């Protein structure tokens, strides 16, 4: 059988460095593939991916609940602090609990609501550009892509003075909990340390907002708690989710997008000559090399997807990057085309869990690239630079992107 020749090691170095090539091979062989090594289905076809993501009745996001069933009592206790937070994240919950939280927060993340942060983001971008232009040679990830999203999310939760270095360190520790470093023997302990530190850091802030409410998201969550529509645990977990989720993914997209332009200087030139293409260009960067490659669902019932019967209790890796390069949906899917339209990609997923921060991320990335094309030439990779990606099934994250930055001579 064909299946046998497919590599099922999702963390193999060539899969991490070139996920698109790997998912193309899978999609061409079997868009719904049983990965025996991982013990679940891997979906790489656009139609299959969209079908599962839009069907929250049959496909659950309650990954913490399913994980709990697989662990022994002892193992469960060892990660209790993580469970206590993560099982309250809306991204891991099904309706009806998901619905209440999502409706509450959505109002503050609509395309129109986000516009009011644009001037602030524009300023941060200009300041950051001044800095990098004075250096000439930079690590694009740390020196440019990181600055914008972190500052913005702290502004949103009404805590501009939080220590971003510490938050980054703890978020990374928490990240270890998922299977990023399956070979790290202390991974559960490390992740607990991370989450405990985050919780200890954020709790006093929540208390402060309880006494002196502002117009920020924490105050909003607290008023919903007082009204009885969500619980104190929801408030805490959601704050951690916003701080944890609100920056890394956006930073990675800015870096991946820049890498895409470095490999397609013709598209950069076109973009620079036609800045009106901004929104379409950002959609294409999301499709071409989005920062979240995949997500996970569990089948609640036996469900037919395409020609395949997915059994109740099976888990599914939904490959967003796989779907985003499916030739049945996108012409010339491996080409970068900043004018692509329509472009109904799945970089923010589809269905009820579609990214809450999508409009925020879009606006930040728009401002980042609007700033870049107005002031610099297409960045050039430093000679001999070896690009490495973090070994993750979910996140597409470049470790470092050493480039030369030169001012645009008009």
């Amino acid at each position: 059988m064909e299946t046998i020749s497919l590599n099922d090691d999702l963390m193999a170095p060539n899969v991490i460095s070139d996920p698109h090539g790997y998912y193309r091979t899978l999609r061409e062989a079997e868009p719904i593939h049983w990965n025996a090594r991982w013990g679940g289905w891997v979906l790489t076809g656009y139609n299959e991916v969209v079908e599962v993501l839009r069907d929250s009745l049959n496909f659950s996001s309650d990954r913490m609940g399913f994980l709990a069933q697989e662990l022994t009592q002892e193992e469960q206790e060892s990660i209790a602090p993580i469970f206590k937070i993560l099982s309250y994240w809306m991204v891991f919950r099904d309706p009806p609990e998901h619905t209440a939280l999502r409706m509450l927060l959505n109002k503050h993340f609509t395309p129109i609501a986000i516009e009011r942060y644009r001037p602030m983001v524009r300023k941060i971008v200009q300041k950051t550009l001044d800095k990098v232009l004075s250096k000439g040679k930079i690590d694009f990830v740390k020196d440019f892509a990181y600055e914008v999203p972190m500052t913005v999310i702290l502004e949103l939760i009404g805590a501009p003075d939080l220590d971003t270095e510490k938050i980054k360190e703890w978020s990374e520790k928490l990240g270890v909990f998922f299977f990023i470093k399956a070979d790290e023997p202390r991974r559960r302990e490390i992740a607990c340390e991370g989450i405990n530190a985050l919780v200890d850091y954020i709790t006093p802030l929540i208390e402060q907002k309880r006494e002196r409410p502002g117009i920020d998201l924490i105050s909003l969550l607290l008023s919903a708690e007082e009204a009885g529509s969500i619980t104190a645990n929801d408030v805490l977990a959601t704050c951690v989710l916003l701080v944890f989720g609100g920056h890394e993914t956006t930073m990675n997209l800015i870096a991946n997008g820049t890498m895409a332009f470095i490999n397609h200087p013709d598209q950069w030139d076109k973009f620079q000559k036609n800045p009106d293409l901004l929104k379409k260009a950002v959609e294409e960067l999301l499709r071409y090399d989005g920062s979240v490659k995949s997500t996970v669902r569990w089948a609640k019932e036996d469900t037919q997807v395409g020609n395949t019967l997915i059994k109740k209790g099976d888990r599914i890796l939904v490959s967003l990057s796989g779907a985003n390069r499916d030739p049945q949906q996108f012409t010339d899917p491996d080409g970068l085309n900043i004018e692509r339209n329509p472009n109904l990609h799945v970089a923010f997923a589809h269905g009820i869990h579609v990214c809450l921060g999508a409009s925020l991320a879009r606006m930040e990335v728009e401002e980042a690239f609007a700033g870049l094309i107005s002031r610099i030439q297409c960045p050039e990779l430093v000679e001999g630079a070896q690009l490495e990606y973090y070994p993750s099934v979910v996140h597409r994250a470049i470790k470092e992107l050493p480039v030369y930055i030169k001012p645009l001579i008009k």
Partner: protein
Amino acid sequence: MENIKVSVDLNKCVGSQLCIMFSPTVFERDGNGQSKIVNRNGANLAEMLSTAEQCPQCAIKVENTQTGEVLFPPPELAF
């Protein structure tokens, strides 16, 4: 609602169901898990506009058919 037209752009709709959560009398899921309008008179204009705003994709368009004016989304949001 006379003179008001509401439509969903299926090239944009990602099936978030947010419009259904906010205006269940107007929107429903179609066979592809996207949104469809089942009762264009199910909400007044104010509710219709506030629901259209919730859409992460700006896929819901509200127009005044008499004047041709697009009430939502504003041009700077369209992508």
